[in-house]
């Protein structure tokens, strides 16, 4: 078992797919009776005007069981996770959470993960953080490190092998 199990998005993870599918069916059962397509979610959606995400349609498509169609669409990756749809839904439906589940399912199903998600994931798996400490340039072009600024050493997993052993269980469990 290696760390690539979590990062190799190419390999379909059967168990994981099943679990997320269960999560989606649960969402499907729970939302189908309650959403009355008022589109309040879409009216406040941060990704609507710019990227044409329509959360009420995501709920409608889920209601109809068109999960594969959504998983294969780029639209699910336009959500900015501002949580306004979840906050404002009069029926307490959370399109943002449906979108998280759909994206998780896309990843588990071996779909190409967009943008820098793979490198962010790889960084977290190897050093525990999305990136290592950077040298930062001030306005007058002086480069400073944490050390130069008198900041304490960066807090990160001190034993990467042990840290990865914990993460590995997520891979082993294939969840």
């Amino acid at each position, binding site marked *: 078992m290696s760390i690539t199990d979590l990062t190799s998005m190419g390999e379909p993870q059967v168990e994981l797919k099943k679990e997320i599918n269960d999560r989606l069916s649960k969402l499907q059962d729970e939302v189908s009776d309650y959403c009355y397509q008022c589109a309040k979610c879409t009216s406040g959606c941060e990704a609507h005007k710019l990227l044409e995400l329509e959360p009420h349609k995501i709920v409608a498509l889920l209601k109809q069981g068109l999960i594969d169609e959504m998983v294969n669409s780029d639209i699910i990756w336009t959500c900015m996770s501002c949580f306004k749809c979840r906050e404002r839904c009069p029926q307490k439906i959370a399109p943002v959470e449906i979108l998280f589940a759909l994206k998780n399912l896309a*990843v588990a199903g071996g779909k190409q993960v967009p943008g820098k998600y793979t490198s962010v994931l790889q960084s977290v798996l190897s050093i525990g953080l999305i*990136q290592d400490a950077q040298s930062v340039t001030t306005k007058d072009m*002086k480069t400073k490190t944490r050390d130069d*600024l008198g900041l304490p050493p*960066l807090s*990160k997993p001190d034993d990467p092998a042990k840290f990865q052993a914990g993460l590995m269980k*997520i891979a082993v469990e294939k969840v």
Partner: protein
Amino acid sequence: MKKKLALYTGCLMSTEQYGYELSVRESLPLLDVQLVDIAGFSCCGEPLKSVNQLLTLYLSARNLAIAEKHNLDVFAPCAMCHLALSECKQVLQNNPDMKTRINEMLAAEELTFEGNGEIVHTVDLLHDHIGIEEIAKHVKKPLKGLKFATHYGCHLIRPSEIGRPDDSEHPVKIEAIISVLGAETAKYPEKLDCCGGILQINLDESALTKSGQKLKAVQNQGFDGLVDVCPWCHKMFDARQVKAGETVAAKLNVPVFYLTQLLGLAFGVKKEKLGLDFNISPVDKLEIG
């Protein structure tokens, strides 16, 4: 009454947004907050929620378990980290099976998540725990004659079901803090608009458009500057302001501050100590500090 908290530094603040970390470390001890550094923390997992939610849950639980080991409540200055940790605590408290499962995984690092600790962010720490009256006592150089726009950040105020530091539709705590520091604030229609920060990972131009639109609105409405409390939002508004301006075809010139930087300035701390050299936006034009 001294408040002792584990400083959860997260990723973005501790690896590049040094202005936030410096100003947090400089200004909060003046209010009798003792920040404790703990080795071994990792990412909160929030940026990877789209990839694997269990991973997010695991990473957050791991960080909370580390703080619990030291018997300390957690101070997470990043809005995204604060949401991930708070949501993790809520999910695991309400789902004993998941808690058991996560704890089985955490055993690899000899950690256990109990869920007893409190999690605070800059805004509730200042407003609710320390209090406006106490802050007022420390103001030496009031920020007179300045009017700021506030930016709370989506993750800080939503989803309210999880329990967030301020109201989801009408947040007012940052305004209250700025007011006691001597400056003014005003409502503006774009106050709750998202910075687009998370889209930096996969749709960068859209992220820049969101930030650019908000900055443009702030600039057009005559504010002297923008105040934020999240390293993701701040990176978009400050470090990436020029690029955001190019994306929305506007020449942007908005000074952007972390709330803790303004706090330090009003307390009379020298601006070098508050990391203001790292603010790329034109903060010097306000001539404070």
